[in-house]
């Protein structure tokens, strides 16, 4: 049975467990129908031209893990940003781990999607926000049909979440191959603020395929910073679908650090619904071997006087492949839009390839839109300069790579996270330089 069929029949079994009167049920049914009609995306689709899912779809994944497993905090501590005080929402093989989590309902909710979906207390929020911006595409629809667990974060009006929230998805390898479909909903009401760190982490070399959907709503003057750490095992693949809806004067930033995994696809979509909005998209990709990372971004400017800043840097070694497809749409009424996009890549080895494609569709006439992409090698002159100061070639290269990625890190607002990412980059490049940038 291929994966699509397996999913369709699993859905029937899953349906048995659901409350059929729940409003979500119709949404699920429509979604699975859509997935049934469209199936997994393939390379014939323009948006998937450079990313083939074939190699990951052929595994025989468990759709629902048989049993929940426990893990000791000390085994997984390294995957947390553990030197900060934070809330933690942790899942093991897709199932909530109360043992590893620290949730809250105090001033705001940082808890579970399963309770939000099933308890009447959250009904209003779910009704208003669940699946409202996630568009119809087959992978998002598939996730919607199976939506069951994930993080539910609700920050009421003018509340500032005083510490960051970490969302961790572990997989234990108890299943030979596991498919996970976390579903997160994050609502940041008017004037509210939140910082979120998200990580997907497999603990063994068994295959994991994660198809994640996150919806983020930022109200008027709200602020949200979202950090994605994609540093998973080479046996894991991730499709991350993130949709962000912003109201006037809000600011949302998403930083994506892609260092691991087999195939990583980021579908990151921003929709601006008011004026004075700022949308920030930043990414650092450092991959090697046959790793593949695809950033597919969209910023839709639908109102005047808004900004967007996209800055993606990539370093590609061996036969790694990178894709950047950055779409910026500026509607006719969105005058005075300031949209910036840049994608810079360094190719370390001849075998590595990069496809970078900006796609600007601008219907307003008074806008400032700039974009640029570069693909290059490490600057030989700079390497000689550094060597002439006694820095060996390997360290010189590492320093240049660091420096290259550095300006993306400057906007990380959590210092411990910044240090953490710097160290991961050092690890990835295989050098310790003994200083912070």
């Amino acid at each position, binding site marked *: 049975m291929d994966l699509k069929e397996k999913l369709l029949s699993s859905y029937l079994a899953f349906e048995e467990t659901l409350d059929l009167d729940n409003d979500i049920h119709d949404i699920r049914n429509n979604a699975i129908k859509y997935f049934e009609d469209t199936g997994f995306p393939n390379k014939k689709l323009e948006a998937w031209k450079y990313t083939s899912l074939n190699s990951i779809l052929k595994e025989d994944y468990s759709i629902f893990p048989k049993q929940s497993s426990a893990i000791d905090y000390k085994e997984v501590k390294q995957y947390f940003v553990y030197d900060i005080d934070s809330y933690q929402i942790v899942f093991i093989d897709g199932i909530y781990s109360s043992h590893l989590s620290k949730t809250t309902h105090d001033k705001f909710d940082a808890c579970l999607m399963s309770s939000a979906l099933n308890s009447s207390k959250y009904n209003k929020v779910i009704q208003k926000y669940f699946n409202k911006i996630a568009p119809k595409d087959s992978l998002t629809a598939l996730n919607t049909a199976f939506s069951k667990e994930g993080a539910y974060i609700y920050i009421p009006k003018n509340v500032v979440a005083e510490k960051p929230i970490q969302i961790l998805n572990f997989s234990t390898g108890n299943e030979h191959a596991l498919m996970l479909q976390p579903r997160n909903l994050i609502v940041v009401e008017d004037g509210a603020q939140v910082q979120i760190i998200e990580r997907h982490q497999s603990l063994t070399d068994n295959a994991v395929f994660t198809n994640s959907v996150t919806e983020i709503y930022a109200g008027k003057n709200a602020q949200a910073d979202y950090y994605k750490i994609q540093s998973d095992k080479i046996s894991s693949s991730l499709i991350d679908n993130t949709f962000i809806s912003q109201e006037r004067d809000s600011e949302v930033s998403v930083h994506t650090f892609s260092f691991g995994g087999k195939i990583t696809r980021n579908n990151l979509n921003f929709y601006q619904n008011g004026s004075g909005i700022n949308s920030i998209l930043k990414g650092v990709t450092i991959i090697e071997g046959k790793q593949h990372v695809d950033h597919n971004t969209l910023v839709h400017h639908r109102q005047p006087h808004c900004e967007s800043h996209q800055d993606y840097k990539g370093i590609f070694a061996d036969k790694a492949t990178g894709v950047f497809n950055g779409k910026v749409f500026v509607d006719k009424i969105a005058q005075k839009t300031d949209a910036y996009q840049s994608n810079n890549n360094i190719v370390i080895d001849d075998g590595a390839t990069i496809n970078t494609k900006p796609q600007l569709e601008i219907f307003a006439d008074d806008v400032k839109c700039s974009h640029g992409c570069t693909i290059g090698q490490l*600057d*030989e*002159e*700079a390497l*000689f*300069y*550094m*060597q*002439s*100061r*006694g*820095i*060996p*070639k390997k*360290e*010189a290269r590492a*320093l*240049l790579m*660091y*420096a*290259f990625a*550095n*300006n993306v890190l400057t906007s990380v607002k959590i210092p411990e996270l910044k240090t953490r990412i710097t160290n991961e980059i050092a690890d990835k490049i295989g050098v310790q*330089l*003994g*200083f912070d*940038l």
Partner: protein
Amino acid sequence: MLKINNLHAEVEGNKILNGLNLEIKPGEVHAIMGPNGSGKSTLASVVAGNEEYEVTEGEIIFDKSNILELSADERAQRGIFLSFQYPVEIPGVTVTNFIRTAINQIRKAKGLKDMPANEMLKKIREKAAMLSMDRKFLSRSLNEGFSGGEKKRNEIFQMAMLEPKLAILDETDSGLDIDALRIVADGVNKLRTKDNATLVITHYQRLLDYIVPDVVHVLVDGRIIKTGDKELAKELEVKGYDWLREEAVV
């Protein structure tokens, strides 16, 4: 300290150095002058170990061993320093972090531990003060957006930090205003000892009023065609190079 014998070097198939000989002893200051394109910077790059240039013949002896097989960083670790005619910009690396990395990598190559942070800081402050360098430069990205003169001063700052045995200063004077020239030249003079040597490449006598050379060479078409004392530089300032070319042909 440095002995270059019959050096031939080329880049992309063009012969640039054609049998160059040069000997510099500890404690000496040598100056090289010569027309544009004669090969002065090429010589500096080849001694520093730039792999872009291919040495086809000859040898470079530094501290009694042939260094041609050594990489640029190994040469720097042994005490060769090049102040670049056109220093390279390295965005994202601060001056402080760069020099700290250089010093500690050199120490590592010698089997020494990292320089303690407070000692490093003290040294950085001291040398920056010696060159009247504004502290805010230290936390800026290396050479990024620096003016021509600021770049040159920063080269000498690095030299002061690294305390090389042989410093090659490639047109360090160009781009410096009169005050800066004096400050930088004073700095270079303060760094002189009886054990180290300096090779100054310049077009102008002016610099040599401050850094007084023991020996002056004229480099034309990849060879040294005349060597003299500091008076030669003054003569060149007045007469140019043509008379030497004619002399060399005769």
